């Protein structure tokens, strides 16, 4: 579903991604782990077609980036630590706006379904600026799944959430993954990633340092695996 070959990204003289290779099969939930500055967000922004690679190939659902970016975007749902929502519109209006941008059919019905999925039906007519951070993040997931994308990218979605809001977000993430979508999620939180992902990749110094599948590792060994991968790269 996602194939990345020898990806290089430079910002001026600084090289952030140094020949990164990455592959994800359909239906996989990959947690991309790594310290600050490892290149996680830069990598996800390239996958989301928000940033152009300096060199290397990126192929999502059979389409190349950046040449076929519009076709890729049609198949992508993106959630970042910012909600990408308009505070002066209601939850329902935000979803209607994004639904029009994506050309979603039967939009009113779909908006109702999505609001129910993220548990915001009763708050649908409230302005987003009155929402808590957790509620905004749930609505952000609703926005991202509105057009029923094949691939979902989550950039540290738990940032700034308290325990209850994180747990609620996890439930929505599990629901999203259970529907067979391919998911790539960056995170600092190993415990949370261990609960959700089917594969763990460690990104360090702009390359994937190590990768392991859930069935190949005990949850308690994830921290040792992570530290080992960082030391090796």
């Amino acid at each position, binding site marked *: 579903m996602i194939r990345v070959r020898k990806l290089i990204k430079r910002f001026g003289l600084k090289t952030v991604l140094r020949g990164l290779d990455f592959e994800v099969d359909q239906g996989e939930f990959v947690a991309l782990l790594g310290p600050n500055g490892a290149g996680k967000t830069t990598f996800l*922004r390239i996958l*989301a*077609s*928000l*940033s*152009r690679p300096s060199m290397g190939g990126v*192929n999502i*659902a*059979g*389409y190349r980036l950046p040449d076929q970016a*519009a*076709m890729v*975007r*049609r198949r*992508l749902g*993106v959630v*970042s630590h*910012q*909600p*990408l*929502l*308009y*505070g*002066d*519109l209601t939850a329902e*209006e935000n979803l209607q*706006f*994004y639904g*029009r*941008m*994506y*050309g979603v059919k039967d939009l009113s019905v779909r908006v109702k379904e999505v609001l129910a999925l993220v548990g915001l039906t009763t708050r649908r007519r409230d*302005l987003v600026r009155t929402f808590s951070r957790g509620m905004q993040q749930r609505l952000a997931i609703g*926005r991202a799944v509105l057009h029923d994308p094949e691939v979902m990218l989550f950039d540290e979605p738990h940032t700034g959430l308290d325990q209850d809001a994180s747990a609620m977000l996890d439930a929505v993430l599990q629901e999203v993954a259970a529907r067979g979508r391919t998911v790539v999620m960056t995170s600092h939180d190993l415990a949370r990633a261990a609960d959700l992902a089917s594969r763990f990749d460690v990104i360090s110094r702009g390359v994937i340092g190590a990768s392991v599948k859930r069935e190949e590792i005990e949850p308690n060994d994830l921290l040792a695996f992570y530290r080992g991968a960082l030391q090796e790269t």
Partner: protein
Amino acid sequence: MTIEQQSALPSESASGKAAGFLRAMGAVVWKDLSAELRSRELISAMLVFALLVILIFNFALDLDPATRREPTITAGVLWVIFVFAGTLGLNRSMAVEKDRGCMDGLLLAPVDRSAIYFGKVLGNLVFMLMVEIIVLPIYSLLYNVNLFNPGLLVVIILGSIGYVAVGTLLAAMAVQARTRDILLPILLFPVVLPVILAAVKASTGFLDGSEMSLIRPWLNLLIAYDIIFSAVAFMVFDYVVEE
């Protein structure tokens, strides 16, 4: 699904693309108008600023009544008001997109990015024209000048289109910088100078009842500027907003 199967999918027809373009553009306009109707932040800031400038000029130009009604003075003061109030609106309109990461949300949509640009232009144009509609009678009242001249209204519309077309593009560029509030006027005013010059000259011409042959070159300049800069913005907006 394999790459071969994907490439066998029918491509979107030209009419489908046009419909998608208009749908996305309409969605951006609807979103901007709905948010503004609710918050009234942008219009009220532009309007208060415009009214303050009218008052300041009223006291600063402490001239005799005849001089105050001079078409050159009237046209100059009006366009200073429109340009500065417009800059406030352009800055705010793009800041809303940047502050909560909404620009990324727009750029993630599978639409031609120039649809986003034209949606923003239309929204900004509506806000600017609304302010102008309110400013004209107030100015008329305070300065005792008759501004209800169809020719002047045409100039105001043409000038506003050119100003907003360039301003929206440059605001999208400036909003990426930390110093966006300062950067926009520095980028915008030199580029938009032909519009201001042509608009002031044409406005003066209509206010003092000049012959059409004297006004036409300035109107032609405004129309040419509107077309050229809308076309340039259409071509480069994608690169301006890309990281």
